[in-house]
């Protein structure tokens, strides 16, 4: 695995963070807005001063679906795909571990080990999160 496994220099900080079990997102040094995925400018104020900063890894389920058909090798249905709204603001597509999840549930980040790529951020329902 090379540092530029994905061939995307902009997401390097994100995946380097993932290797260390830390969700690293971009935050605008000028307006404070967080964003995901990484871009060379802030979508809020168009500043190019972006910092890669550890995020809380906490969020709320914005939407979710139980996938019951085969969609990807290695993922055995049924499983839950969800959009999590992070406490910092950005939303991200993810999986939620376990059998049940509801919109509005609080979630906490976890990591899925992958042999061919950096750990993948997923989430677990956690009422205390």
């Amino acid at each position: 695995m090379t540092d530029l496994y994905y061939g995307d220099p902009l997401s390097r900080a994100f995946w380097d963070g993932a290797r260390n079990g830390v969700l690293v997102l971009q935050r605008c040094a000028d307006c404070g807005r967080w964003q995901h995925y990484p871009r060379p400018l802030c979508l809020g104020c168009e500043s190019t001063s972006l910092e890669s900063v550890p995020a809380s890894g906490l969020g709320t389920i914005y939407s979710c679906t139980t996938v019951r058909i085969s969609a990807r090798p290695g993922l055995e249905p049924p499983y839950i795909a969800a959009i999590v709204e992070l406490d910092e603001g950005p939303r991200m597509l993810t999986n939620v571990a376990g059998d049940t999840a509801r919109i509005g549930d609080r979630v906490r980040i976890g990591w899925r080990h992958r042999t061919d790529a950096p750990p993948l951020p997923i989430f677990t329902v956690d009422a205390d999160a």
Partner: protein
Amino acid sequence: MTGLKARPAYIAGVAETPLGKVLDQTELSMVALAAKEALGEAGMTIADVDGLFVNYMGEEGTVQVGEYLGIEPRVADSSDLGGAAFEAFVHHAMLAVAAGECEVALIAYASRQRSRRNRRPPVADAASLTAQFEHPYGLPAPIGHYALIAARHMAQYGTTSEQLAQVAVAARKWAALNPKAWIRTPLTVSDVLESPLLSDPLHTLDCCLVTDGGGAVVVTTPERARDAAKPAVRVLGVGQSHTHWHIDQMPDLTVSAGVKSGEAAFRMAGIVPADVDVLQPYDSFTITVIKALEDLGFCERGEGGPFVENGRLEPGGDLPAMTSGGGLSYNHPGALGVLLLVEAVRQLRGEANDRQVADAEIAVAHGVGGFLSTSSTVVLGRD
């Protein structure tokens, strides 16, 4: 827009390609047949075509269809808005005709996705955003995306699976009146709810067909439209937009680009939703129709579920919609937009036989593409 009002554009011919399961044609030959038929309605031949609007027919957009038909266009456009591309083609053809850039614009499409079973999943470059941030989560495309949209709508507004099912039931009732529809057997709300869940809350029968098909549409000047063998239909308004590709980047899962495309098209046409006699919404999934009803302003935001109850979209309902039977029951060739235009024109000409909406004067075709990503709206009127 006074310039456009001074020089409007008309749809002077429409045709379907062979539909259903097509084993004796290729995609290109299907397009050729539909083009000849649509141009015939317009009182024209392929040699008259000087504007070509095509996508999803091989590499380089219009080029392969151009070669196949011997067309060397003055205007060529392959805007890639997925299912909404064909309504966007009407938009661009209207502008080109109004500007004098071309006189006879041919819009065409065909696929044999059923025969070939090649609704092919995209192979993403590993460095792409999609490969990094979306594919690892196994969201089946596009049903998983629409499932997330439907689930959010249900949680936010109380929309029910029964209400979603009403959309499929309405499409089927129209299909029963259309001899060309792929499936015409009666369908109930219970049938939909008892069909297998694929990605909650969407069942098999919340999803469109996978069929072979396509069509052709001829857009032209008022002068050329006068030669048409059948009454030409005027393009009154057009609009388009898009919001996202990756579903987690959609600003609000309950608001589509149809808000923008519809507002633009209705404003240009000088109409309000209550003026619309017949609606051809893109019914890729039942939720797609509920979104169209809200985003085009037929009901308030969040009221799409109650709106479709009591047969409102069905034959005899207040807002006849999906009158061909739609993508849910008539035909869905991968990109349905061209067939929405064909049905809208036939309704306005009064030639829809058993499914004819009485005195239809204003029709709307609302294309949607991607993952509720793109929208393009066309308002058509009888002259």
